[in-house]
């Protein structure tokens, strides 16, 4: 039986490799590699956009174009957002009632774990990469990323990562979902004790998380190289845009944080499978927390800095004036980047660590409020006396500022040791970080998605639906997460599927808010998909009338040129059969059928 299993696996693996090789031989003309490596030198100087790419699905599987990869990241991020969101809807419905009613407590724990990891690693990081991949090369005047193929590898590591992280939910024999929470605290996550966390589902999740970290690191190296070496002649450090600054800082944080997570995860996998004792021995639990949070706190800023960049980019466009205190917004970004590595132990105030260490971490944590406040005041002063236009992207950006203030101020209280010791592990913490993660980060994501919608689709979204999406999200967010802050004051501990009846009203309120959020996001999906397919086409390169106020930027200039080029050569995107991209000229029949 054992031998037969091995044999079957060998045959399957062999067949898979042969299929890959056959497909590669079909897609790649091995003899087409020439020093020019591309169609540009073959007299297609006036070509633009996608004409050098294969058509159909093959285009998306093989693309190394930063704009296509940006769109792939975006689609991936939004799918993950839907999955993570639906997971939490099930959890919130379960929490209407104090007892265990809809789902089992263990399934609740599984959803809780996956919701956190999905939202942070499969939605948060990729949706930021969507914006940065599409926009940074356009903003800095680069032809593409410094390493286009590495860029593609970084993206394609993510789908397997998602499958591995969600593997426990698939009907695989003997595999159950991880129930470690996203922090994966040891000794629970080492599989010790009488629990069920020695299951392979946890190993699969750890592998998936490791892959997503590898992907993020590759992306970060690419962005650092691109911003340092690929800037256009007219782009200097002095006039580098605010979004690229935040991406550069974020990439620096990723470079120092994610490899550490990767190493810690490998050590944890060794503990689980190969009998090492990094985290299962004495002090192992604290060691894991130190390593995890040394990554985990910078991760917060990895997720929030680029959204702050988007907001710093969008608010001036609809306020009719330039960003107030641009330099100080950049300095505060860099300051947050540096300080973010000195605050991790504020997640561990309740572990009984040395009080002197604890006090120093409290001081640095409180200090990080200063650059954050600098940004907040600069956003407000940018709008102050400005010619404010409340378009959907602007609404989401203003919503970001509002929610970030609540999320930030609750964070300042948590940074204080005595307050933290009372509120630690309560819903107050959950409310605090959801104000930042949903209320701020996701809002900035939506702001960017709406603001650049004409850029990447060539069409306009439906404004009324956009506003409905905003208001449902804003009200839903504040109902859900303010109720959580109150629950935390009341002493409701986090992570539980059941609770005492005294918390029922606030939990029900939070569920109502979550359902409002759900309705808002359904409207968003409808608006997004339908407008992409059928929205009114944009004919002007300046859909937001930015030229009027002197706030026109490079990416719209690129868009404008693309529009004009498309008009100049007849604007017929279907007429692209006879172009040279590695041998497709020989198979016109295939191209035509795809076109």
């Amino acid at each position, binding site marked *: 039986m054992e031998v037969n299993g091995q044999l079957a696996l060998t045959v399957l693996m062999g067949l898979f490799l042969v299929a890959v090789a056959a497909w*590669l031989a079909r897609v790649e003309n091995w003899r087409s590699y020439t020093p020019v490596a591309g169609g*540009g030198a073959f007299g297609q*100087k006036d070509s633009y956009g996608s004409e050098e790419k294969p058509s159909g699905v093959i285009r998306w599987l093989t*693309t190394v*174009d930063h704009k296509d990869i940006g769109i792939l990241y975006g689609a991936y991020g939004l799918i993950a957002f839907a999955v993570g969101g639906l997971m939490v809807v099930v959890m919130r419905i379960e929490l209407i009632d104090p007892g265990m009613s809809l789902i089992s407590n263990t399934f609740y724990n599984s959803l809780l774990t996956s919701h956190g990891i999905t939202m942070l690693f499969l939605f948060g990081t990729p949706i930021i990469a969507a914006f940065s991949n599409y926009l940074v090369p356009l903003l800095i005047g680069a032809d593409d990323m410094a390493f286009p193929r590495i860029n593609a590898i970084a993206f394609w590591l993510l789908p397997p990562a998602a499958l591995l992280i969600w593997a426990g939910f698939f009907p695989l024999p003997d595999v159950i979902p991880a129930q470690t929470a996203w922090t994966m605290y040891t000794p629970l996550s080492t599989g010790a004790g009488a629990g069920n966390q020695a299951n392979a589902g946890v190993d699969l999740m750890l*592998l998936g998380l490791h*892959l997503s970290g590898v992907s993020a690191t590759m992306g970060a190296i690419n962005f650092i190289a691109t911003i340092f070496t690929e800037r256009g002649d007219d782009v200097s450090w002095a006039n580098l845009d605010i979004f690229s600054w935040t991406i550069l800082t974020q990439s620096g944080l990723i470079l120092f944080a994610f490899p550490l997570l990767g190493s810690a995860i490998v050590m944890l996998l060794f503990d689980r*499978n190969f009998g090492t004792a990094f985290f299962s021995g004495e002090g192992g639990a604290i060691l894991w927390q130190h390593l995890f949070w040394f990554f985990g706190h910078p991760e917060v800023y990895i997720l929030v800095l680029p959204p702050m960049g988007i907001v710093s980019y969008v608010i001036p466009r609809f306020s009719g004036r330039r960003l107030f205190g641009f330099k100080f917004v950049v300095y505060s970004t860099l300051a947050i980047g540096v300080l973010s590595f000195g605050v991790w132990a504020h997640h561990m105030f309740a572990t009984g660590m040395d009080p002197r260490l604890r006090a120093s971490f409290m001081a640095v944590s409180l200090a990080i409020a200063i650059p954050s406040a600098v940004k907040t005041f600069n956003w407000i002063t940018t709008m102050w006396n400005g010619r404010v236009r409340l378009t959907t992207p602007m609404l989401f950006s203003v919503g970001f500022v509002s929610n970030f203030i609540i999320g930030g101020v609750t964070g300042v209280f948590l940074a204080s040791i005595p307050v933290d010791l009372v509120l630690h592990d309560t819903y107050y913490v959950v409310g605090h970080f959801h104000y930042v993660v949903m209320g701020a980060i996701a809002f900035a994501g939506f702001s960017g998605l709406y603001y650049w919608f004409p850029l990447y689709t060539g069409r306009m979204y439906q404004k009324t639906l956009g506003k409905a999406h905003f208001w449902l999200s804003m009200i839903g967010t504040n109902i859900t997460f303010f109720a959580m802050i109150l629950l935390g004051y009341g002493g409701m501990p986090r992570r539980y599927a059941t609770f005492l009846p005294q918390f029922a009203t606030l939990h029900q309120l939070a569920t109502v808010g979550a359902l409002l959020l759900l309705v808002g996001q359904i409207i968003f999906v409808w608006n997004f998909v339908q407008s992409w397919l059928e929205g009114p086409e944009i004919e002007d390169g300046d859909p937001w009338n930015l030229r009027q106020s002197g706030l026109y930027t490079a990416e719209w200039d690129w868009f404008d*040129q*693309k529009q004009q080029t498309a008009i100049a050569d007849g604007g017929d995107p279907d007429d692209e059969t006879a172009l040279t991209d590695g041998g497709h000229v020989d198979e016109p029949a295939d191209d035509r059928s795809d076109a």
Partner: protein
Amino acid sequence: MDAEPGLSEQYRMASPWPLFIALGIPIAELGILFSLFPIAVGGLLLFGGSVAGMATESGYAKTPWRGLIGVAAPLAVLGLAFMFTRIGLPNRGLAIVAAAVILVAAGVAGMLFSPDREPTY
């Protein structure tokens, strides 16, 4: 932005290799972690072959053959370390060494038997 549209089309905007490099890594990791010999070997072959293919495509190498051997060398070291040092995971080490041996064999065969003339157009 540069005022010349079409400048960025001077290089290839499609490559089939990144997808398979990205697939090879998790397949190999799964195989090695769960000690599934064929999966480990297959994943490493997919990864190594794609790395060599991509190096050729992007112009870092004229042929993929030396690249295959280049990928095999560190794998062989890792695999031997798994087998003969205190790490003590001989089955997994054997899988890694086997993948390295196949990669080297493919590289040597390629160098010996593939036509080394420049293709004519």
